[in-house]
């Protein structure tokens, strides 16, 4: 099998961005594509509980590649890396399926089905964040609201809500993880692909809060 990432012949740009921290660059150029990356993986990978693993492993590989020198085509590199990683897994696990046909070029075929990243306006960005926010549990929403919108400190938020600071922290941990998930959720993806992820999150939230947050 050919080396897919190699085929695309990425040139690395050594000039860099005048000392911009890699972490900032990574958020802006890589993490921003999460919706489409998830869609891409979901289309190609039958076991949906593994999508998050593949995503995180892809991120790690891209981050490491970008450490020495910034990538000139970050988005292309990101998708090639994901593709490469899935091909690796297929080889390793010897999945008996269409994927074991010996030619993984089909992975390229489906790339056409992935829509190009849309540049969205500030209003849509806000709508996306708000919709993710609305999906948090009531307590989580309240804590995030106090901390991020009303600008209260953790101590003040705890006093305001009559909760221990530890509890506030717990809500924030959950809130951040769920926001990260929901904000990047693919509204075009088949709903079923996300059910198990949602279920896991809800289950976890229920355990943590002792509340039922399903609608």
């Amino acid at each position, binding site marked *: 099998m050919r080396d897919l990432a190699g085929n695309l012949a990425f040139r690395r740009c050594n000039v860099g961005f005048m000392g911009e921290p890699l972490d900032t660059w990574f958020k802006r150029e890589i993490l921003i594509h999460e919706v489409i990356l998830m869609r891409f993986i979901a289309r190609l990978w039958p076991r949906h509980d593994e999508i998050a693993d593949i995503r995180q492993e892809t991120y790690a590989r891209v981050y*490491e590649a970008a450490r020495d020198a910034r990538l000139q085509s970050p988005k292309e590199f990101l998708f090639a890396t994901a593709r490469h990683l899935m091909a690796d897994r297929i080889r390793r696990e010897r999945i008996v399926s269409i994927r074991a046909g010996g030619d993984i070029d089909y992975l390229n075929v489906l790339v056409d089905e992935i829509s190009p990243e849309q540049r969205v306006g500030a209003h849509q960005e806000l*709508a996306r964040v708000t919709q993710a926010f609305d999906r948090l549990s009531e307590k989580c929403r309240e804590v995030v609201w106090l901390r991020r*919108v009303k600008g209260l400190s953790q101590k003040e938020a705890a006093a305001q809500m009559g909760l221990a600071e530890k509890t506030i*922290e717990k809500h924030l941990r959950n809130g951040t993880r769920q926001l990260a998930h929901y904000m990047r959720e693919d509204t075009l993806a088949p*709903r079923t692909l996300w059910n198990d992820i949602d279920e896991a999150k809800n289950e976890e939230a229920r355990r943590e809060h002792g509340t039922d947050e399903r609608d």
Partner: protein
Amino acid sequence: MSTERTNEIEETASDWLVRRESGQWTPADQARLEQWLDASTLNRVAFLRLELAWEESARLKALGAGVPGNRPPPPGQWNLTPFFDSHRAAPDLRGTHVPGTVAADPSEPSAVTDSPAPGTVPRGARQRTGRFAVAASVLLAVTAGFGTYQFWSSDADRYRTPVGGLSSVPMPDGSKVTLNTASEIRVAVNENERRIDLRQGEAFFEVAKDPNRPFVVKAGKKRIVAVGTKFSVRRDGESVEVVVTEGKVRIEDASRSLRSSAVEASGSAAPAAAANNPVFLTAGAIAYADEAGVLVQRKSLVEAEAHLSWRSGVLMFREQNLADAVAEFNRYNVRKIVIADPAVAALKVEGNFRATNVDAFVRLLESGFQVRAAAEGDQIVLSSR
């Protein structure tokens, strides 16, 4: 990396982030955080991802100005602000998210949109929709030629979808029915009863709870009875498949009187598979019923849901014979795939596919297997290379 490990890293990352933002953060803490970040790139990318979400949540401040007090408005109440007037079109993320149009609208009878969300349709999907719209209208023309049925006319209790169609129909009682490809139902919902006759095809039911009005689906000689639950019924002549994803349903012969079975239902659930006795199904059950009886398989909820991926226009195959996969595809497409070679029929396929994108499926087969596809009239013939 395993799923548990991924989850564990994310949990630890969220802990670091929240503590850093807590206001009680020392240089020693910072050193320890950096150590953790340096320990593995997986740690670092998980942290950055959550940090980005945290940073982005600051956007909510734009909404805070108009909200008095310390509590956020209830979910979905944001359109009080002028921001969302034009952008509320974004899909309801919590809903069942069924693509397609509502069948009762006679102006759009084809219900062929195969994209789950309105508005932002990927280019490829739009093309598919276009191609399919042509196919659907051909089908309409043919059926109209027979003049045997009214297509979503004043006959409001009758709903059907063309081949490749997918449609969601709200019921007057608050229940919702999702019709799969080439399906037809008749509906009688009034104060006293809720009855659906599945004439053909497959439908998924989300039943509003109402103990006084059992929700009864008739499929040929079988009847499926529910109170408040979610299940699908697929009919192939007299073979009936029932998948339950929530609550409990009862499957029985349609010839039984409803009254006598209601009495039994209050007693113990007897999972007798004899053709005459009702069989009770709970969430995760997949039942196959025909004249000979009822066969029940108990699956995990995830597996049961996989049977219902058609609701989002997707076919999911796992280790499936190509012959079976092709049979599934053919339900959704006017252009049928024909397997000319038993060796091809036995190939195993795995993956997720748009039900109406038969071309992509065939292309994948050609690139992944020793299979040749040839277009012959309205058919795609698969043979060994």
